[in-house]
Structures are given as C-alpha cells and as structure tokens.
C-alpha cells in the first residue's frame, strides 16, 4: 500500500507536558483518515509538526517519501493544504482577495482557479463581503478553499466542524467527500464528532496520551464493532451475578441497563434472572459504533 504520510516514534515534549509520545502512524494515499482522540490527546500537535510549525523532540515523519530531516521537506509541504485550529485568512479581505494572496504566496498566477475554488466551497456569491462578516461555517469553507489553492494532494483538517450548525457540518462533510472522490485528495481529519467522522473516514487512527492506540480501516472497524444485547432489568446487581455465573462479558451502562456481549441464550438468561427475582423489562439488539469502540479502547471500558 502506498502511504502519503508515515510517522516513526514521533515525540513532542513541552516544558512540563508530553504531547506526543512515540507516535507511529501511516496514512494511505487516497484515503480519508480520521484521527480520533480526546482533548489533549495530541492531534493538533501532530498536525503542527507535520506542517513545520513546531519541531519534534524525537522521532521523525515522512511526507511524500521525503524524510522530515531532509532540506527538501519544504518542497513536500507545498503539496499539503492545511487548516489547523482556525483558518489562516485575513479578516479584512474578501474571499477572492484571500485566494489571490495565497496564489501569490505559492507563486501561481493570481487569478487562476479562484472562481472555481470559490464555487467548489460554495462562496461564489460573497462578492466584496469581508471575511470578518462571514459566518463561522463560511470562514471554515474559505479556509479550506485557501488550503486547496495550489492543488495539494494531502489536505489536513483539524476539527473542521467545530462550532458549526448541523447544516454547516453537512456542507463540510459533502465538500470533503467530493474532494476525496472527485479529485483523489487524501484527507487527514481530526474530529470530536465521531458520528460525523464515521460517515466520512475510510481509515481511522485512535490516539490517546500522545500514542497511537489503534489504526484500522473502516472495514476492520465494522468487523471489530461487536453486536450486543441491551437489557433493562429491575435489579442490575442480580443481572451482574447471573452474567458472571454464565461467563458472559457485560457493561453496566445505568442503574437499570446493561450491555451484554457475546453469544447469549435469551431463554437461559431470563430463566436465571427469574430465579434471582429479577424482572426483565426490555431486551434489544445494539451495534457498537465508533463512539463506543473508541471509549472501550481509551477509557470507560468493560468491567
């Protein structure tokens, strides 16, 4: 498999805080790679290192086959478009002026493709409106348009849906999918909105405390996500005793509910609970999703 970005033991330590701790990662070319992690897990720090905003304490990365220690890493970075934390746009310039500025910065003809880019992100009608008068969603889209100037092969987006309304989130999602499918752009995206990420990503990297906990494809995630039975009962203590006796894995989710994993004989379970004097109120099948899979990996896991 062809990888557009790999990291080897990437470490970043600030004065009293270890942001990245030997991170190893591989981003396949042409993928939408979703980076999932808690606040402070190291996602933004990783992006800053790749984009040259900070230097790693230890370790390295390879971008388009160019090692981070090589002098031509700057040339490799020119093929990357990034929106890290907030879009790098001038608030007192219009959308078109921001794009013209970016084209000049990249040494491209100043007006080439600006109209097309604005149309791609849905900002073609903004005219002379300054970026400071844009909504948050419009600024995010302008940030993406600016990142796309110069036709990058890799787009790095740091929580692009942050602060957006549902309509804005849908627009960003559709834009990312279009970029990936129509232009073949590899997208490296971090997000807290796991449900949204699960509609986008073809690959996932789950990061916690500066380390990569698991990397897997969307197909592998489907296989790894387990079906479970959610039982609502009158006595979770009795339920726990019965399940322990049956050798079943479970997770108590509330005072009256538990998720039971593995193959279950419902008849045996209800009979055992009846013997303990515990009533079963509801039983329903549930699929584990990215959110519960993530939580089970990084914390709040099974008992």
């Amino acid at each position, binding site marked *: 498999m062809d990888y557009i970005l790999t990291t080897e033991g990437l470490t970043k330590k600030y004065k009293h805080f270890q942001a990245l701790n030997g991170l190893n990662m591989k981003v396949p070319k042409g993928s939408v790679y979703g980076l999932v992690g808690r606040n402070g897990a190291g996602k933004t720090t990783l992006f*800053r290192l790749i984009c040259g*905003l900070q230097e790693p304490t230890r370790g390295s990365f390879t971008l388009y086959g160019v090692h981070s220690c090589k002098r031509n890493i700057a040339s490799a970075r020119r093929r990357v478009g990034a929106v890290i934390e907030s879009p790098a746009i001038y608030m007192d310039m219009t959308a078109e002026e921001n794009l013209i*500025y970016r084209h000049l910065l*990249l040494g491209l003809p100043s007006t080439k493709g600006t109209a097309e880019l604005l149309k791609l992100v849905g900002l073609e009608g903004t005219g002379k409106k300054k970026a400071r008068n844009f909504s948050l969603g419009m600024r995010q889209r302008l940030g993406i348009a600016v990142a796309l100037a110069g036709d990058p092969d890799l787009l790095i987006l740091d929580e692009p849906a942050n602060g957006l309304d549902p309509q804005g989130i849908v627009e960003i999602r559709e834009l990312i999918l279009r970029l990936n499918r129509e232009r073949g752009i590899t997208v490296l995206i971090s997000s807290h909105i796991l449900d949204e990420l699960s509609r986008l990503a073809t690959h996932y990297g789950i990061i916690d405390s500066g380390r990569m906990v698991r990397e897997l494809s969307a197909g592998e995630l489907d296989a790894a996500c387990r079906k479970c039975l959610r039982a609502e009962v009158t006595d979770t203590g009795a339920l726990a005793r019965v399940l322990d006796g049956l050798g079943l894995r479970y997770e108590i989710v509330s005072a009256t509910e538990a998720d039971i994993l593995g193959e279950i004989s419902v008849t045996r379970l209800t009979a055992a609970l009846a013997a303990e004097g515990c009533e079963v109120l509801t039983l329903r099948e549930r699929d584990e999703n990215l959110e519960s899979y993530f939580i089970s990996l990084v914390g709040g896991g099974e008992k």
Partner: protein
Amino acid sequence: MSRLMYSGLYRLKKDKVFWLFLIAVAVYAVILSKMLVNSYEYQVMANGFVSFDKMVFEEAPYTGIVAVLFAALFLGREQSDGAIRGRLTVGHSRGAVFMADFLVCLTAAWSFVILWLMSCAAACLTVGELDMGVSGFIVYALSALAFTAAITAAAVLMGHLITNKAFLVVAAAAVWVLLLIIASGLDDRLSEPEISGGMAYIDGEFVMTGPGPNPLYLTGPVRTVCETLLRLLPTGQAILMNFADLPVSPANILYSLVFTAVMLGLGLLLFKRKDIK
C-alpha cells in the same frame, strides 16, 4: 523569498491601516512644511540670524514611533489572522518569512519617512538656506532611512515573538520610549560642558564659584563608549538629528546597519526556535 515579498506587498496594498498612516503622514508633512517656513521667518524677525539646519529636522525623533506602531499593528494582525502560520505551512522557511516581513514593514516605514523628508526638502527650497548644503541634506536623509530601518528591525523582532496583538503594540511603544529615554540621557551627559562655573550652595547660602572642571563631564573610554552607543541607537541618531548635531557622515548609516543586523540576527535565531501555535 520573492513570492513572500509579492504577497506581502499585495497585503500591504490592501491594508487600510497602512493607507490611514500614509494619508495622516502626508497631511502632516504638508502642514509641517508650512509650519517650518513660518517658524523660521518668525525666528529671523525676532532674533536676526537663525540656523534653519537646527529646525528642519526637529520631527526626526518621532519617525521612530510611527514606524514602530505601524509594524506592531501590521504584524499583530498577521499573528491574530494566522497569516504567519499560513506562510510556514505552505513550505516557506522561517528565515524567509521573517526577512520578508521585515522588508514589507520597512517599505511602509520608508514611505512615511520619505514623505517627512519631502516636507523638509520643500521647506528648505522655500527658505533657501541650509548650512549643511544639499550633500549634507542627502546624508541626513539617508541616515534617517537607515535609523528607521534599525527601529523597524527591533519592532519586527518583537512582532514575531509576541503573539498577542494588544500586548505587542504596547510593548513596541514601550521599547521605543525606553530607547528614547536612554538616548536622551546619553545625549544630556555628553552635552555637559568640560568647564563649569556658577553658584554652589554651601553652608546654607549660595556662593559664586570660579570656573573649574565639570565633574559630570565624561572623558576617555567612557565618553567614547557613550558616543558610540548614542550613534548606535536609532533614537540616539534621531535626537542628534533633531538639532543637527548628528555628524554629516556616511558612518551614521554603518552604525544603523550594525543595530539592524543585531536585531535581525537575534530575531531570526529566536523565531527559528519558537513553537508556533
């Protein structure tokens, strides 16, 4: 580097603050020119002969604060809008970004200074008398451009290390004031006469004393160091230029180049190590 310059000048062209500064300086330059001529004519009527050399450059110390404030405001917005971050992300080196920002700020600062010098030149043409002559005026003009570059370099150093816009503006102004105070103090001490005489307060009464060596007069290596430091500081050269006490010498430009080189060197070193957020 050329891409950074082109894009930086495009940014400057679109910057309302730059145009506001330029218009304000242009208007003030026109008013200043007339004020200088009127002031000279009044002084001649009142006192007979007066040297126009000692009046024409009286605004020299204030060119620094204009350059510093503009650079701080400009770079403050570059920081807050994420523009410096954006330039690094697309693969430009830290050194190139720093130097390009310096050159863009210098372009603006020199625009303001040239307008001021034009008003001085217009006043000189009207008055018709300048003891230092045209060549002296040219040396002074180049010295002004050089010390403006020096103070701009100091502002650009701060602009790349301080990320809070408001704090940057305040800190830049404070540094300029501090440099002005230091230069003013040095100038005062160096201006002390070698021989002094007059009154002394002894045993509760004022007593006339004979002329004698002034204890405040600096001599030897200390004097040399103070003179060198005064000419190294951009505010020092500006204060000296104020009363035409700055030597009419191309060495002024060398002193400013040294100060500029130190500021740029230090700025490059610190900016390269800075973690950008």
